[in-house]
């Protein structure tokens, strides 16, 4: 597990360790850990990390916020921290102040679209919206005749069909039917739904990378404890090589996600290079979630398949996060089109520019 080297991550890790310890959370059938955790995160200003001071947030840098999401992944945090951060970030793009409380963003899939009519009312359906049921407000990217707008919507104005993703977190369908937003402003020039999906995808990539770090950690520990055939299973070469591959997948996810986060944190615009970084991160992290998670389960055997064990908190969430803000299949097609369109001789220069 990477040592935290900034104060935001340190603060968050302390809160996670105290109030979101995966074993404690897993044993708690009533979810009574959620409220104190959210309160502590809010008091530390973390959900609105990416919102400037003058818009009601704590004005944390993009880079520190990304590191915070990576830490949240390491604890498989199951409150709408990432979602509220993304919502605050989206609203801040249009200089809309963020309210207190849980938020989420919509749409959460590149396929869905919210439209804005001439009166400024919003309509459309967004599927797979993470934590919509828990949210007090939605940050919405909407399209009208004169381009994209960003809006703050009271969550009670939308119709919510609840659902659960593979990781047992809320992933809901939100329908807006001529909903008047609390606030609405034009999106900045060049900001579109792809920008929002790339940002959301990088957030999920960092969470997946964090979950994989923890899966590697607990798998290594378990293999050093579990005895079979009269020795620790960590002494079997087949197990060692599986764990080495898990380390490789974890490393690839971490490298891809932190590189994309660094690219966005230092980008002047979402150009082809940032697109390569962000799309690649989502694709590679999703692949790692599948391959790495499978190894973590294989090492744990039957115990890892139980609800009592914490492994599934990481493995299933990592798999679920693949679907948000464009799956790896979506981004692979889009990245492939971009590469083909730029032409064969422009592929290496693009890769080498990073």
């Amino acid at each position, binding site marked *: *597990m*990477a*040592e935290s080297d900034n104060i935001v991550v340190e603060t968050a890790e302390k809160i996670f360790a105290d109030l979101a310890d995966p074993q404690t959370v897993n044993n708690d059938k009533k979810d009574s850990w959620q409220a104190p955790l959210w309160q502590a995160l809010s008091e530390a200003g973390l959900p609105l990390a990416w919102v400037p001071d003058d818009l009601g947030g704590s004005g944390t840098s993009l880079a520190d916020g990304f590191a915070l999401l990576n830490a949240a992944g390491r604890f498989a945090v199951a409150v709408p921290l990432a979602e509220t951060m993304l919502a605050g970030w989206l609203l801040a793009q249009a200089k809309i102040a963020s309210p207190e409380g849980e938020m989420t963003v919509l749409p959460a899939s590149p396929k869905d679209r919210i439209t804005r009519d001439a009166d400024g009312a919003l309509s459309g359906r967004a599927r797979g919206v993470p934590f919509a049921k828990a949210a007090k407000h939605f940050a919405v990217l909407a399209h009208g005749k004169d381009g994209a707008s960003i809006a703050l919507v009271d969550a009670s104005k939308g119709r919510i069909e609840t659902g659960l993703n593979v990781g047992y977190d809320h992933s809901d369908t939100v329908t807006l039917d001529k909903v008047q937003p609390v606030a609405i402003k034009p999106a900045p020039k060049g900001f579109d739904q792809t920008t929002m999906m790339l940002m959301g995808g990088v957030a999920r990539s960092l969470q997946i990378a964090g979950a994989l*770090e923890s899966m*590697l*950690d607990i798998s*290594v*520990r378990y*293999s*050093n404890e579990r005895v079979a055939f009269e020795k620790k299973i*960590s*002494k079997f*070469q087949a*197990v*060692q*090589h599986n*764990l*080495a*591959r898990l*380390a*490789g997948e*974890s*490393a*690839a996810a*971490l*490298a*891809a996600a*932190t*590189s994309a*986060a*660094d*690219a966005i944190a230092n980008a002047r615009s979402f150009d082809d290079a940032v697109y*390569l*970084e962000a*799309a*690649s*991160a989502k*694709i*590679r992290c999703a*692949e790692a979630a599948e391959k790495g998670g499978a190894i973590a389960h294989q090492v744990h055997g039957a115990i890892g398949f139980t609800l009592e064990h914490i492994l599934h908190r990481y493995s299933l969430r990592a798999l679920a996060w693949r679907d948000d803000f464009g799956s*790896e*299949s979506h*981004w*692979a*097609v*889009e*990245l*492939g*089109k971009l*590469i*083909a*369109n730029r*032409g*064969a*001789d422009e*592929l*290496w220069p693009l*890769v*080498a520019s*990073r």
Partner: protein
Amino acid sequence: MTAALRFDPIRLPEKCEQLRKEVRAFLAEEIAAGTFDPHKPNREDTDAPEFSRRVGAKGWLGMTWPKKYGGQERSFLERYVVTEEMRVANAPTRRFFVADRQSGPVLIKYAPEHIKMDILPRICRGEICFAIGMSEPNSGSDLFAAKTRATKTDGGYLINGTKIWTSSAHIADYMIAIFRTSQPTKENRRHGLTQFLVKMKQPGIRVNPIGQITGQYEFNEVVFTDFFVPDDHVLGEVDGAWKQATSELAYERSGPERFLETYYVLTELVRAVGPNPDTRSAEGIGRLVAQLHTMRRMSVSVAGMLQAGKEPVVEASIVKDIGTVWEQQLPHRVRDLAAFVEETATNRETLERQLDFAIKTAPKLTIQGGTTEVLRGIIARGLGLR
């Protein structure tokens, strides 16, 4: 907590990009002059001594080494840029690649001063070629089973035995090899091997080419019969090669050559598919590019850590493990997608010829320079499993 794996998002500094432009311009000139064909990847069959000298004249060999040995004292990241541009262009680097990456650094660390002053400047000028004498007929991954003897005699050692799979031995001017100077001890089976500098093309050395499944004759059997090596050609501690063998491995294992070996088929596929790919081709290319980008970011990260004086042994092994598995699978994934390329694609024949070669090359990639199994053992040790 498990030992943390670090892959910080290191970026190449600005001065690297100027250098990259220079390397690209140089390679474009060489291609235009007919030195090599970038679409023909069978670089290993091509010995290009004049090209080697021109690369040396540019200051791109031994570029991180001290100036007094002919180096440029430039950063490891700058060397990285030169290496990756050469690799992507399919430039004929075989004559100088081993010396620049591995042999030179070993000499800098362990050779006596007069030998450094003699040999290193010649490497930097691109004049000499090195081979590495590690494997033997009964000693491959298990390096410490090596049996080729170095017997002490007046003023030096007499070498008897056989090295095998020795790349470039048929053109090499020197070899850095390990020979047995003592028997292993009960306490340490790695004891008793010594690293030597060997001057090739001498009586007492016979080099027999070995045909490879690619159709090339790139590696060799090297037979030593009472071959004399002077005392000052001992590199480092007698009987103590095992202490020296590991520290350079991070350099050897994490470079761009560990995932770009078959890259050319991806470029050619993109060319064949054209600007408007169907969904299947787009998806396939997108995944491969995402994987490539990730590999490179990992590799650059390790290069940055090396430049900062760290020893990322586990991270470097991870790069070689997943990098070589990737470059091994790449021709097959490209073949999958090439099945849907239009018959009319103008580069179809080039792509097919390249795939034919890359598919034959693929099996060696996870064997040479440390097998996948050895690497995973190193990673497992780093994780605290062994």
